[in-house]
């Protein structure tokens, strides 16, 4: 069992990839494994999107939004997906940028890359490349990408400021950052935060929405917006908190509405 954060993530997402490859049903982004209907990861993609995709790509989707719906992609653009997982967002983007565009999927988990490559073959998409690497050290040159997308991944990084600086570096002037991620809103007492972390793994590393904005601006981005689109209510966590022996009604005011999936957008220059 890995103890460092990177190792834990590789193990957890590697296992998720193998399950998806084997045709198992999806668990949450946040991988609680509780078997309950995770409000964060369900029903993110429209039927039009998923109809043309391999079932394994959908099964491996562990995101918290649909970043490809966030932004208009134009034919010929170069797109980079940070933490591409099973490849669902890469494959959807590839259709939008067309044969003269290109989509790069960057991931550090072997099993996810294998799954993504298989999904690419099944989908018959050519204008896609998967790369093994870390989002803190992007293996692309400066000013080489038009759009950066990412789906519930940046919260997992131990060095988010570096991820955002790297994103800024590889974007061309005028390039756009359009990401779905988990954010924390308002104040959460430390003890409550720990209970929430048990519920959704993602919350452990989630940035406060104001901090996200600050880090993006510090990296050089302008026009930053953080738009929560699915806010989690105390009721979403009711079953879990009850099972954990916690008093949901007492906790409700502290928990309610404090965690959200958000669309985060910014522009380079």
């Amino acid at each position, binding site marked *: 069992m890995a103890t460092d954060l990177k190792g834990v993530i590789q193990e957890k997402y590697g296992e998720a990839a193998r399950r998806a490859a084997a045709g198992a049903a999806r668990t949450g982004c946040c991988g609680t494994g509780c078997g309950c209907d995770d409000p964060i990861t369900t029903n993110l993609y429209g039927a039009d999107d998923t109809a043309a995709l391999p079932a394994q790509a959908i099964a491996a989707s562990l995101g918290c939004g649909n970043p490809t719906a966030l932004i208009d992609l134009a034919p010929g653009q170069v797109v980079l997906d940070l933490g591409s997982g099973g490849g669902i967002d890469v494959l959807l983007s590839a259709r939008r940028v067309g044969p003269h565009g290109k989509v790069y999927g960057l991931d550090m988990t072997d099993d996810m890359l*294998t799954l993504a*490559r298989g999904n690419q073959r099944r989908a018959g998409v050519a204008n896609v*490349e998967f*790369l093994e*690497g*870390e989002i803190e050290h992007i*293996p*692309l*040159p*400066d000013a080489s990408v038009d759009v950066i997308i990412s789906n519930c991944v940046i919260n997992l990084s131990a060095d988010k400021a570096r991820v955002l600086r790297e994103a800024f570096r590889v974007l061309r002037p005028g390039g756009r950052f359009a990401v779905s991620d988990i954010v924390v809103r308002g104040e959460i007492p430390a003890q409550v935060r720990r209970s929430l972390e048990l519920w959704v793994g993602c919350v452990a590393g989630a940035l406060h929405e104001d901090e996200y904005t600050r880090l993006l601006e510090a990296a050089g981005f302008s026009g930053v917006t953080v738009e929560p689109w699915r806010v989690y209510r105390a009721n979403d966590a009711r079953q879990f908190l009850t099972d954990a022996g916690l008093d949901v009604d007492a906790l409700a005011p502290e928990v309610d509405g404090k965690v959200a999936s958000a669309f985060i957008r910014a522009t380079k220059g």
Partner: protein
Amino acid sequence: MAIDPELLEILACPNCKTKVDLVKNGTALKCGQCRRVYPIKDDIPVMLIDEATIEP
């Protein structure tokens, strides 16, 4: 299947951010600056600084 020429053109060393070149009969990529060698496994370039070897 060899690595796509267009991909080779754009790939950069994650450490130096400079261009990498194909070495070892097309099975690895090398950075001329920090001399790190990144393997290519199953046609996927493994651009991990920790897994690279530094070669003369």
